[in-house]
């Protein structure tokens, strides 16, 4: 119990450094002054624009100042602080190249959690500083009371979520292009988390417009989902070699998957949001797998179950590039399967999911092969080249069919291709599905047998 309530050392260190930081103390000291000036400007503008008879009752004066305070606080809480905290994290990672934190009892999740906690306090302090101005705007009338509380809460949640995403991009090693792709995917995820939460709350409240409580819960839910996901994701990126960092991350992904699967059964909107979420998460997982430097390292050996069937089941959750790809593939396939049960044209969804898997799985497997050609078993390489041959073949067939269709004017008879969805699932499966499954089975069997070799020594 003692450890649960003791403060995270990283959070404490960050807070001490923030207190000593001149930029932060100056900013926090100046911020109320700036808010005051801008609020007064907004008030005077509002007073100038209002007819004298309305002014006598003070109607609607609060709108301008409220917007002004929201914008100013949003700039600081959602842009300034996440940017500052991310740059600080990057500089510290560069400075402590040895990674001394990893020689202590701190886990990567503790380190990320500490940073998130310290930034949450800083954003909270900023929003709290702005609170009197929000209340002042409310006293000027024109603003519903709940908005005065929802806006700061929303700014806090959005600022912290933005920092979580920025931190995950900062933690990732790799090219700028890859960072940009990951960032786009991650921001997409943030939106999706929000929409899934919103939809689930709308379902829960049984009304078209959610109540204040429902909105608050929706913000809170999406914040929690975002923080849980990104804490695990950043920790998996930060993990030192002795930690099987991706295992907890995949557990979180799987838990979110189960949660949102349940929600998706209540509404078609939730179903749509959910399907897109899983395609995005699979994208993130696939990128991570392609860039992972390791194949089932020794760290995973220690945690591999002794029982053969448990080991088989836990394989996709284990660190390593190929297990990662199979996990992503599994997620896409299951997501497609479940989603297809909820809609009339389930075949389309099946094709969508298999197309996503095909166009991402093959290049990423080949990328992994090229990066680690000496380390990978021959069967991986075999399967990888089959996938690439498949992609080339389909592209050529699609192109030829397209040309023929255009020349003959029979556009509706296009065969299935990777770039689009059509109405011929069986044809799609016959043409490409068998080869895809064949490749995946080869990779899976080869990987699982490799994982077995890594079982914990008796």
């Amino acid at each position, binding site marked *: 119990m*003692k*450890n649960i309530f*003791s403060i995270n*050392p*990283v959070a*404490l*260190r960050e807070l*001490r*450094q923030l207190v*000593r*930081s001149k930029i932060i103390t100056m900013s926090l000291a100046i911020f109320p002054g700036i808010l005051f000036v801008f609020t007064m400007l907004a008030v005077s503008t509002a007073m100038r624009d209002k007819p004298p008879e309305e002014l006598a009752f003070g109607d609607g004066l609060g709108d301008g100042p409220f917007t002004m305070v929201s914008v100013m606080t949003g700039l600081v809480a959602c842009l300034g602080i996440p940017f500052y905290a991310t740059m600080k994290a990057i500089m510290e990672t560069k*400075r402590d*190249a*040895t*990674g*001394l*934190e*990893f*020689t*202590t*009892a*701190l886990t990567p999740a503790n380190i990320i959690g500490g940073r998130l906690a310290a930034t949450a306090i800083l954003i909270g302090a900023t929003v709290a500083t702005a609170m009197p101005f929000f209340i002042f705007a409310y006293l000027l009338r024109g603003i519903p009371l709940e908005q005065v509380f929802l806006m700061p809460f929303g700014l806090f949640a959005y600022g912290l979520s933005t920092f979580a995403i920025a931190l995950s991009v900062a933690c990732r090693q790799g090219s700028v292009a890859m960072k940009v792709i990951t960032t786009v995917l991650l921001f997409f995820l943030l939106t999706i988390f929000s929409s899934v939460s919103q939809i689930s709350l709308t379902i829960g409240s049984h009304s078209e417009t959610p109540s204040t409580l429902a909105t608050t819960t929706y913000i809170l839910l999406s914040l929690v989902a975002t923080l849980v996901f990104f804490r695990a994701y950043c920790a998996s990126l930060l993990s*030192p*070699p*002795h*930690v099987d960092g991706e295992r907890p991350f995949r557990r979180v992904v799987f838990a979110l998957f189960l949660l949102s699967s349940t929600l998706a059964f209540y509404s078609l909107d939730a179903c749509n949001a959910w399907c897109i979420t899983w395609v995005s998460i699979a994208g993130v997982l696939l990128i991570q797998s392609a860039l992972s430097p390791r194949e089932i*390292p*020794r*760290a995973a050996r*220690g945690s591999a179950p002794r029982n053969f069937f448990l080991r088989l089941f836990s394989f996709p959750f284990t660190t390593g590039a190929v297990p990662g790809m199979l996990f992503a593939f599994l997620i896409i396939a299951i997501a497609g399967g479940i989603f297809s049960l909820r809609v009339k044209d389930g075949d389309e969804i099946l094709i969508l999911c298999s197309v996503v898997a095909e166009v991402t799985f093959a290049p990423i497997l080949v990328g992994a092969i090229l990066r680690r050609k*000496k380390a990978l078993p021959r069967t991986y390489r075999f399967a990888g080249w089959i996938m690439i041959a498949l992609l080339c073949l389909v592209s050529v067939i699609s192109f030829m069919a397209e040309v023929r269709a255009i020349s003959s004017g029979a556009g509706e008879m296009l065969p299935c291709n990777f770039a689009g969805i059509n109405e011929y699932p069986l044809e799609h499966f016959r043409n490409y599905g068998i080869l895809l499954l064949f490749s995946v089975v080869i990779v899976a069997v080869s990987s699982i047998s490799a994982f077995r070799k890594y079982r*914990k020594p008796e």
Partner: protein
Amino acid sequence: MKVEILNLTRIFQRGFKAVDDLSFSFSSGDVVGFVGPNGAGKTTTMRILATLDIPDSGDILLDGKSILDDPALAHRTIGFMPDELPDRTDTTVEEYLDFFGRAYGLRGKALADALASVEDFTGLVSFRDKTLHELSKGMKQRVSLARALVHDPQVIVMDEPANGLDPRARIELRELVKALAENGKAILISSHILSELEEMCTTSVIIERGRRLSTDFEDDTAWIRLRFAQKEGEDFLARLLEMPGVKEAEAAGNGFRARIASGDEAAAELAKGLFSRGLVPIHFASEAGRLEDVFMHVTKGALA
């Protein structure tokens, strides 16, 4: 506490073997000098010991338990002092040590006692409120040592601790290492300053291209440095070689060096021989640097 490094191999990209089948062991009270040219694999071995890297094969055992299977055991037992020094403008010595104390799971009185103990041991009490950036290199090195000691580890791994220190700081560091060994710590220390290592180490391990080199040729000899009031001529070398126990002699600076069997008896025999021939040296001292000789003898200066 016994540390066993067993057939350790670490292969980086493109088959670069940083450590190649390396084995050695040491125990509490030992100070092991870990010596090798740049790129020999010293830092990689130390990083594996500190769990900052994992080997491709081989193992490291602490009292028979593998740190690869139980990295937390290494975290509790090993204090790692890297070659980079702490340097921050926004953190004081006290805060820095407090952070690592907490990171090792210390809280409350245990933490306060640990901080007081390491600050006292490393002489940092009067510097605890200074920021790390304000400290000299020697003091930063002390902070680094204090950080490695804050959880009272049984094994201390020090990577180039004397690097860039002035003579006073080096002497102080040497005394601290000796005191730690007397307290029963097992110490692995790498350094380029071999004469210093020789003074504080009980044994040494020399590696090159990731492999441990055989030091079998380490015979029982020592160099004695001699200087006389009157400048002796070139023919003196021949006379020196005739002295009892002298195996090799050469001119060195404004004096001479003679290699004799190691131990006080052989040195006394040489002194007696010199006096009996009317040669009274104004300087007669055994020469530190045996490790340097061994090092130069066994290594080729090749990188892996």
